[in-house]
């Protein structure tokens, strides 16, 4: 190159290195080159597998315990698993354990107790959802309960899989507890109203729809739980039991329903 000539910029910084590498490879025997290539492919495949393996969450079917705060999910969880009464506090994180149904078949699934304050659910493939309702203060909380149930029923994952939904009306040992039939009627009425108000909700600031795109039940008719694609059942139970801490819990109905699911 003469002095004063402008040198054009190198297109690739490692062009010389690539060339030297290729020259090296050609100098080696073909077996070595083949070995190197196989090693590289194996490493790439391992990385891909590890990524896929680590990225996937548990796919075992699970039964989720969902409900508002203080509805009795953790105590129900403890009663179902080992029948003992345990004092509980507000759950901060979820807890899960293997649950074996009573009866001959004795299938096992994961029973998962989610905290009440979280509206985010982990990506389990849900086999069934147990929606725990506090029957004693249901009248005051009916709108909150209905909102949680509505967001559950319109969640895209739930709509796709249509797991069985079991509404457990807990705290039946309290004298003012409402019956399952009453709770069902009230929830139907409330969900009917919610269909209208939630679809009129504002969209989010980034354009995603604030309301839900799924319409519950049939258009034009009042909402009823029988219109849903999934199986729904209402059971009464009492995690604490009538005799307080020492006695057994009154969850026989719940257990038979769970056994039927298997």
């Amino acid at each position, binding site marked *: 190159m003469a002095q004063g000539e402008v040198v054009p910029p190198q297109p690739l910084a490692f062009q010389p290195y690539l060339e030297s590498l290729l020259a090296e490879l050609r100098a080696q025997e073909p077996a070595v080159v083949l070995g190197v290539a196989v090693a590289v492919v194996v490493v790439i495949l391992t990385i891909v597998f590890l990524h896929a393996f680590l990225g996937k969450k548990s796919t075992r079917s699970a039964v989720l315990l969902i409900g508002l705060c203080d509805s009795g999910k*953790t105590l129900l969880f403890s009663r179902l698993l080992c029948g003992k009464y345990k004092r509980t506090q507000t759950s901060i994180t979820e807890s899960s354990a293997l649950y074996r149904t009573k009866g001959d078949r004795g299938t096992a699934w994961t029973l998962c107790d989610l905290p009440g304050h979280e509206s985010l659910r982990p990506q389990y493939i849900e086999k069934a959802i147990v929606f725990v309702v506090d029957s004693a203060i249901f009248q005051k909380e009916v709108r909150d309960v209905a909102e949680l149930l509505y967001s559950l029923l319109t969640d895209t994952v739930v709509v796709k899989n249509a797991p069985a939904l079991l509404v457990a009306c807990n705290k039946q040992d309290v004298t003012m507890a409402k019956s399952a039939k009453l709770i069902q009627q009230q929830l139907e009425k409330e969900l009917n109203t919610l269909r209208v108000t939630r679809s009129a909700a504002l969209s989010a600031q*980034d354009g995603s729809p604030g309301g839900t795109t799924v319409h519950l039940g049939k258009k034009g008719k009042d909402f009823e739980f029988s219109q849903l694609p999934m199986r729904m059942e209402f059971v009464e139970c009492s995690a604490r039991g009538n005799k307080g801490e020492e006695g057994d819990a009154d969850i026989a109905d719940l257990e038979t329903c769970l056994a039927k699911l298997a």
Partner: protein
Amino acid sequence: MLDFFAIFSKGGIVLWCFHEAGVTESFTGPVNALIRSVILQERSGNNSYTHNALTLKYKLDNEFELVFVVGFQKILTLTYVDKLIDDVQRHFRDRYKNELEEKGALKLLLNSFEFNDEFQTLLRMAEESSRSRGPVLMKSFEKSQKSQKTVKSMIETKGGDKSKEQGGKNKKGNKKEGELCGGCCSFPCRLIVSVKGNYLDILCLEVLNFSTFTLANRKSPKPQKPKGKEKRVWDMGGSSTKELDYSASNGGNSLETASFSKDIMEDLVGVAKKGGFGGMFGMLKGLVGSKSLTQEDMEPVLEKMRDHLIAKNVAADIASQLCNSVGKKLEGKVMGTFTTVASTVKQALHDSLVQILQPKRRVDVLRDVLEARAQRRPYVITFCGVNGVGKSTNLAKISFWLIENGFSVLIAACDTFRAGAVEQLRTHQRRLNSLHPPEKHSGRQVVQLYEKGYGKDAAGIAMEAIAYARNQGFDVVLVDTAGRMQDNTPLMTALAKLIAVNMPDLVLFVGEALVGNEAVDQLVKFNQALADHSMSDKPRLIDGIILTKFDTIDDKVGAAISMTYITGQPIVFVGTGQTYNDLRSLNARAVVNTLMKA
């Protein structure tokens, strides 16, 4: 003297508890309040919390997912509690290590944790140690430092270095003055004595009597030495210039897994620089095996996250409180395989930000309006905020949304101060009525304005407007108030009176998204004023936040976090422009993604 001590898992099962004999109330209520207001709202920076008459101190064990809580009466100050919690934690872990290490809640349920005897021993030891330390005696005069000083050294001299001879020592100068003056410390005397006959100085001193305090505070004069020019030392200057070298790797990790390898590369490079082979091996072991996080590991990452949040317009002390709380939540946690410290911390911060932005209560204005309509009363919404944030504009947007959904609205013009406020609302009313003409709504105007001109009492106008709405059957009353600065006490009192007297269903604080650290001050003072000036013991505080001018910030969305963190109330509406359609709701995930993006 403790009321109770409880150990429970993060999943909610109480493993062991201790009740002081004679304490009848169960501890479930206070502990639930602690969990809801502190741990779940990411305020776990300092480890104590007051609830009614109890003080609760707590400690999180993140390795085994346990929480240790102790409660005692607020009026007592027990010094041994912190140490007791640490001791109990250590002993409990050591004793039940096997049971706690099992994954799954079954082990926790099946085992019973008998800890009473050990706890009694630990409690006795702690109480004895605090008792043996005894009350601190006052120091006698002989032991104090004052008795060591000589009288001469206590005599103050003024500006001695200028008036002293070269090379004269302090003591010599002082002794001379002491002899002259007999050691008296009265001011004018001292100053005249100490000055070496410099008339100008005497005059200045006598005139500036009030500033003699500052002069007197000067200690004995500095030693005389011909000094060269000293290097200037700045307060915030730092000690070395190495920190100013930014030619190393730039930050900017994002949360996606694509950055995971980049994190590893950074860690590798960092370790290679530091420890060579041993360090690299240790880092690889840390990457693969189970390593528990310590505060030192997390400190640089938390520092970086704090600066990142502040750069995104989160208020400074909120950012540091958040980072402290996330640090407390992760301390001692065992990392999974192939996760770096940075990614764990970022994930935890992401989760806690989403948790903060999620509404704690139901936010459905339409449903509540329907409920109020069923009860044959109007639903009253009040807008408050500082000047110029967009109260009237967003009021018009909300009334548009409501009339689109078939409700009738009464606007109460309680801004009787600002010129043109009433006319502005009247213009909005006319426009809204032309968009939804009365012919289509059974001959009735969907939006009406209730105004009484300027200069009148806002609370009175609001009360009359609500009564009018009840008579005429309006569904919603929107009360527009004047903007006011948060430290303007008479105006804050007036606002508190308006809210206390009229008891609106929803009190919305309107805040603009451009605000930075001011948001904290505004919200705290507004809430304080509302709490102070209300007559009842359950004062109406701010129920929700409207975040306005969201279209003016690109990705500096931190104001949303500051406001929800301070009040704990949800963001009900987001204003994104000045036309009637620019009203949105908040999508927590989208905001947090924008916030955490590099």
